[in-house]
């Protein structure tokens, strides 16, 4: 985008300039719809959110008139233990799920990339958890994990793996683990799919050459598969990290408004919609935006470094 828009180096002849400016004008013209769309769906809402974060706007605005409050919301946010707690909870969730989903997804991708009988069916079946809408899946797991009638406890107790029924979701010592397990169950197929796409573009003859040279399968994995898979891995990790940082649905179904298990997105929603504090909620949104941007910057820098 920027290469098209940058003005040409100082021109020597007039005709050249004319041509260039005409080209530049055309370029801008062609870019205009995209720019308009981006400013309408991204820049305007973001700008409005940033503006609102400096006000005390309430949802039912008729009751308290909206005033400019400067940095007040951010000062309050800095000392807000609920928000701090929600950031920690979300980062923990992101770390755990991304690591597990990546490891399991890579194994599954390698398996379904090798040729065996029934591979097509296997690829279909592995996608099922991902195809179920998250809220439906979360509700299903909520019942399966229930301490009185849940199938998980029933099977666990019958096979003597568990000594007694456990309230996986309600008990704070297992609630994060249970929500992570559901997300890993659901999203691993997606990770596997992305990695599988990466695996399929690696040329076969590289492996044939390695075989001829007498490289072991493990050496082939470390020297060929992993380096060539790197772009796909980075895309996958960025996707998953950003998704996990915005998580809302599983937590909302499992825990509702329970305070110790709130994610950033749930705290934001409950502040704006539940309490009606639009201004303060906007400040939370901006903070979330900055936190997520931080992760994007880290990843993009990392990607540049590896490209060079």
């Amino acid at each position, binding site marked *: 985008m920027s290469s098209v828009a940058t003005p040409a180096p100082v021109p020597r002849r007039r005709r050249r300039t004319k041509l260039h400016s005409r080209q530049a004008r055309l370029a801008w013209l062609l870019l205009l719809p995209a720019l308009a769309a981006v400013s309408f769906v991204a820049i305007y809402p973001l700008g409005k959110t940033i503006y609102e974060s400096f006000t005390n706007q309430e*949802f*039912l*605005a*008729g*009751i308290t008139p909206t005033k400019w409050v400067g940095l007040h919301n951010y000062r309050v946010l800095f000392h807000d233990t609920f928000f701090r707690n929600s950031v920690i909870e979300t980062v923990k969730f992101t770390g755990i799920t991304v690591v597990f989903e990546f490891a399991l997804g890579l194994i599954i991708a390698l398996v379904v990339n090798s040729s065996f009988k029934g591979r*097509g*069916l296997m*690829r*279909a*079946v592995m*996608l*099922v958890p991902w*195809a*179920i*809408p998250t809220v*439906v*899946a979360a*509700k*299903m797991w909520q*019942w399966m994990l*229930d*301490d*009185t*009638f849940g199938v998980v406890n029933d099977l666990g*107790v019958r096979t003597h793996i568990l000594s007694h*029924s*456990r*309230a996986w*979701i*309600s*008990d*704070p010592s297992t609630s994060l683990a249970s929500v992570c397990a559901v997300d890993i169950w659901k999203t691993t197929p997606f990770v596997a799919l992305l990695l599988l796409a990466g695996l399929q573009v690696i040329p076969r003859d590289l492996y044939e050459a390695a075989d001829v040279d007498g490289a072991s399968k493990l050496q082939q994995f470390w020297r060929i598969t992993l380096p060539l898979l790197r772009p796909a891995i980075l895309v996958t990790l960025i996707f998953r990290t950003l998704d996990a940082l915005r998580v809302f649905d599983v937590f909302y179904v499992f*825990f*509702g*408004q*329970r*305070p*110790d298990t709130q994610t950033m997105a749930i705290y934001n929603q*409950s502040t704006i*919609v*539940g*309490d*009606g*504090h639009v201004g303060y909620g906007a400040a939370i949104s901006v903070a979330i935006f900055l936190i997520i941007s931080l992760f994007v910057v880290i990843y993009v820098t990392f990607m540049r470094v590896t490209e060079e």
Partner: protein
Amino acid sequence: MKHRALLIVAGLVGAVTLAASLSVAAAGTSSPASHATPAKSAAIAPPKVPNAAAIKAKYHGQKITFIGDSVGNGHVRDLKLASRFSTDTGIKVNVVPHPAASDQAYADLVRNFSQKSSSIDVAMIDVVWPGAFAPYLVNLKPKLAKQAKIHAAGIVGADTVGGKLVAMPWFGDFGLLYYRTDLLKKYGYKAPPKTWSDLFKMAAKIQAGERKTNSSFSGFVFQGNAYEGLTCNALEWIASAGGGHYIDGGKVTIDNAKARTILDAMRSQIGKVTPRGVTSYQEDQTEHAFTSGDAAFARNWPYQYGISSAAGSKVKGKFSVTVLPHGAAGTSVATVGGWQLAVSKYSKHQSAAIEFVRYMTSKPVERFDAIFNSNVPTIPSLAFDKAVVRTNPYLKPATASVARVARPSKFLKTHYNEASKAIYQGINQILNGASASSQLPQIKSKLQQILQGA
């Protein structure tokens, strides 16, 4: 070849997803424990709309949307009444159930009013909301003042904000203790528990005995989820132990020794005489546990009486209700709940909507609701109706005259929801293992901060 394989794959994934969604959707309407259907539905039909011809002549063909009930058989009742009203008047009523957690229902209405949306005409609103929503509701006084006179004056007072009648009383609510008469007898108890510690003792003994044959049996169930219902439940525990009503006389009183003691006592029983998962129970889970015979005691609203005594209930004829227990030095209380009907200021069919409210809050409809859905009528004279009392024994003076306690909405006004959230989140943390002395000071400072803004 490749295409066919892809098609098969896509078909398979689609079919499994559909099956999974359908099974969950089906379970959502019937719930894991088999749900009893109301037996009395055949016995009583929705009453006719009085003056239907005149209403039909004026508003025939208009469409209104009613945000109605979702707990228990509330939605079935709404559909029956709306269909009767439509048949008689020609006004079409689109019944939409609100979210079961009332703070979520509140949030939905806030969103609607803040957008000045005309998509809602009539909404059911909680007894603690008129103060917050008054600016967005139609004054019903000009048309319904006469009908308001037959309702309990106290509730009409709560629905009157700044001299305007912003909502009409629809049904009342108060907390009750449901108990298994057969099990009390079996374990040698002559009467239901008087105090909370009696209840814990009895629940422990019954649970120990029943667990031998039913591994999912629990002594006591209530609403422990982090939502509005917990604010109601905990108010009963604290007030019945002499620990005040969260806010008294405009001062935050929640952090006191009596409140700490009773909350810690409750915490010590989680996973002992209650299921460990009770800290995520709302009304429906409470009712399912009791109706499917998996609990000796349950705290719930009157609506459960109808479901637990209907055909298909495993405890039909084996249970009764009484006032909730109290603390060592206190008296039994019940949190006042209840629902009102209000008309949105942004409705495009206000007159038709008011006619619907007139019908829904009339004496014959409240009688129908009391018998069909075991709800508490807001019309006092119905408590003397024989058929109503027969189906709702909790209306007998011994139970119905229990001291009522109100949530502190009059001090908090538009900030009630936020304050209630601070209360139920903190108390949910206590039930999940935190000590009362670590949580109550936090709730207190949050409430003080909210009160300053109110």
